[in-house]
């Protein structure tokens, strides 16, 4: 197990290095941060001074080592645009992304799994077919198109929910959250639903096929033959067993959610890290983009690790292995 973890860490280290190289040198090709930050009235001298200040006068490889060297000591650099530490920028916006992603996750699991188990058990019922059809439509609809429709229906025509921004935030553990106030929750609703629709559909499909697979396994037939009640079968055998694939996929999908929030945050002007990333790409704010991608990489490593542990916990065959 330890060997496995070490190997994982080694691979993620390489991943982080490759990512930072690609992004750092790639962004160098795209544009010149000095050009992006300077006015039309800047003189050549102004531009040279600005370049020196940002450390952009040095050879690129030197800039790269200076930057990554700082990063190893926990200094992710200073944003060219905001002139503030990148880590602060990201950490201030992370809660916004986390709260809609987690809410979307809760909605996705809470609705998707019951629907999936239901349609798995009653596979041939009309209701199951209708549910399955709708989830197919749901996951065939691109995220941004769902967002447009949600805004048009709920914000513009019905005027039930706000279409943009985060609304009021309240402090908890020194972090600003939107879900602590009604106004904040209202602002969260549409972006979270936008992220959740895909989740619901995926979970429904996973839970459905999982249910079907388990229902036809021998021990289930056996349990039925023993006369165990239907509810008990579902509780004892079904739920636990379909949870395994769901936990795996869900874990991996948390990362996907945070990544996909880029699109959702952009459309709903939700001030999270996804929107920060897109803005920074446009402004060639290199420290922010590099730091974001490396942090995301680290997060993925962590999530994969947690998933493995959860997996071991849920599957008795692995749990009891010594």
């Amino acid at each position, binding site marked *: 197990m330890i060997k496995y973890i070490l190997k994982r860490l080694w691979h993620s280290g390489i991943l982080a290095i490759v990512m930072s190289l690609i992004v750092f040198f790639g962004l160098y090709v795209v544009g010149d941060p000095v050009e992006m930050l300077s006015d039309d009235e800047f003189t050549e001298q102004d531009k040279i001074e600005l370049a020196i*200040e940002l450390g952009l006068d040095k050879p690129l490889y030197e800039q790269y080592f200076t930057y990554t060297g700082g990063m190893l000591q926990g200094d992710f650099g200073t944003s060219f645009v905001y002139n503030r530490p990148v880590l602060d920028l990201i950490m201030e916006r992370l809660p916004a992304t986390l709260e809609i992603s987690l809410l979307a996750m809760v909605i996705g699991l809470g609705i998707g799994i019951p629907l999936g188990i239901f349609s798995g058990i009653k596979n041939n019922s009309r209701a199951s077919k209708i549910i399955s059809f709708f989830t197919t439509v749901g996951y065939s609809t691109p995220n941004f198109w769902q967002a447009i429709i949600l805004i048009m229906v709920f914000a513009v025509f019905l005027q039930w929910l*706000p279409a943009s921004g985060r609304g009021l935030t309240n402090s908890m553990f020194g972090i600003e959250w939107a879900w602590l106030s009604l*106004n904040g929750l209202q602002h969260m609703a549409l972006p979270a639903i936008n992220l959740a629709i895909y989740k619901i559909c995926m979970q429904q499909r996973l839970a459905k096929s999982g249910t079907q697979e388990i229902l036809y396994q021998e021990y289930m037939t056996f349990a039925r033959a023993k006369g165990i009640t239907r509810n008990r079968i579902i509780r004892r055998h079904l739920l636990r067993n379909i949870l395994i694939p769901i936990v795996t996929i869900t874990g991996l999908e948390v990362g996907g959610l945070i990544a996909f929030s880029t699109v959702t945050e*952009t459309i709903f002007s939700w001030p999270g890290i996804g929107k920060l990333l897109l803005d920074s790409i446009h402004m060639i704010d290199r420290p922010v983009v590099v730091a974001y991608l490396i942090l995301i990489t680290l997060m993925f490593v962590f999530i994969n690790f947690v998933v493995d542990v959860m997996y071991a916990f849920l599957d008795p065959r692995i749990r009891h292995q010594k």
Partner: protein
Amino acid sequence: MKHINFKTVCFVGLFASMMGSVYADTLRMAYSVAPKTIDPYKSSASATASLNEHLYEALVSRTNEKLLATSYGWTDDTTLVVNLRKGVKFHNGADFTAEDVIYSSCRMMYRVGGKKNMLTSAMGPVTDVVAIDDYTVAFKTVGLYPILIQKLKSLSILDSGDADLGPTLKFDNTGDCGITRYPTKDEFATGKYANGTGKYKYESFENTGDAVLVRNDNYWGEPGNWDRVEMTSVANSGARMAGLLAGDYDLIENPTGEDLLALEGNSAYSYSTMPSWRTIFLILDVGSDVAPGVRATDGSNPLKDIRVRQALSLSIDRDAIVDKLMGGNATVASQFAPSYQDGADSSMPDMAYDADKARQLLAEAGYEPHHISIDLRMPTAKYQNGTRVGQAIAQYWSRIGINVTLVAEPWSVFRKGRSARELGVFMYGWGHPQGPAQMISYAFGTRNKALNLGGSNYSNYTDPDYDAAMAAWAVETDEAKAFEYNQAAMRIAVRDLPGIPLYYQHSIWAHTSDISVIGRPDERTFADMATKN
């Protein structure tokens, strides 16, 4: 009263009391770009300046009204004397005096946290700032620098009491000035030193660009219209408009012309427009033997031929662009700066449209249809309807027989290409508070470092008469004469067409009907543009 969306409240009636506290006179504004900082010198970006203008004031406003100055004048070629307003107090209660002007000049040049400020051009040729008495200050320049008073519009005045000044305060170009301690970057970011004389006081600012301001009740003039101003920024124009319609904001800037149609027939909302100082124009490389992205069958640079440039200009139906694409929210250009700006020659005729004459001129110049190919380069997501206008110009040019490829790139890629001089023909927009001369002095002058002319001459244009007029303008302290030189230069530019003027953008603000808005020409959004009905 406050505009809370009624349906929203009903929908969630139970918890309505938990809604955010609502102030008597609160204005909620949505910017299109997020302000980055509350340090007034750190960034030259318009959104940041808009926010900071609520907190801080300069000697003279952007529209030439006197703020902290009551009068000014050149006593000799290199001395500008400014008389300061008396009885002005900073937000913290301190009195405004000449010392604060010197301190602010130093703070502008000072490298906070080792970093140079973006807004230092005002102090460029200034050698000294001295207090003649508590309410008179003199700026000394290294040579003739008539536009100093224009440049000083970016010198926001801060309270010298926020720093430890040391025994003698003496201006120098490093911002050292004998000052023993400036507030640090982090201290400034807390808002404690966001201490100006403006109509609004700092309450909070987030790095997302959200800010809350409250009225400065001790303002020296007419106090602000609002008890409280809440600013946020929403980059997507559709989302901004949806936010207005959903009751999240009272006032939004830069709605698209299309969105305005949605407001028509809805009595709850309204909009205001104001012709802005931004001109949208094309730049043509008229000087290079081979212009990048411009090809002619004979291998020459066809843009060197004035007839070709005239043809390109004549082929564009600017009225149609203004009516159909801009929804009427633009003015057809007569020159490279708005004809309604102070100092412009307003008698110049609009740029003409005559496609037949354009074809004839091309033929006279010896170019048959499809003999000229042009890559028209432009930035995406930069100007109102920009890419649509680009497509319209491509349509017009292709109709007179020019092969056009429209290349729209992200701003970052575009800027890099422009600084590498890889763009032979491109679309650009320039809005200038310092008068119509500024843009053409950078864009079309022959490179002249001493007078700071021609720094952005991507046309590679050079003309002795033009340069003479611009050089005379650059050192003329008499405003009327400066205007004349500038108008002469503008007429030469429009005759020679090193670029093609298209139109002047209008700024638009959409808002609820319970407020009235009178906009500004400098594309900034200020809370006091709005008044409650």
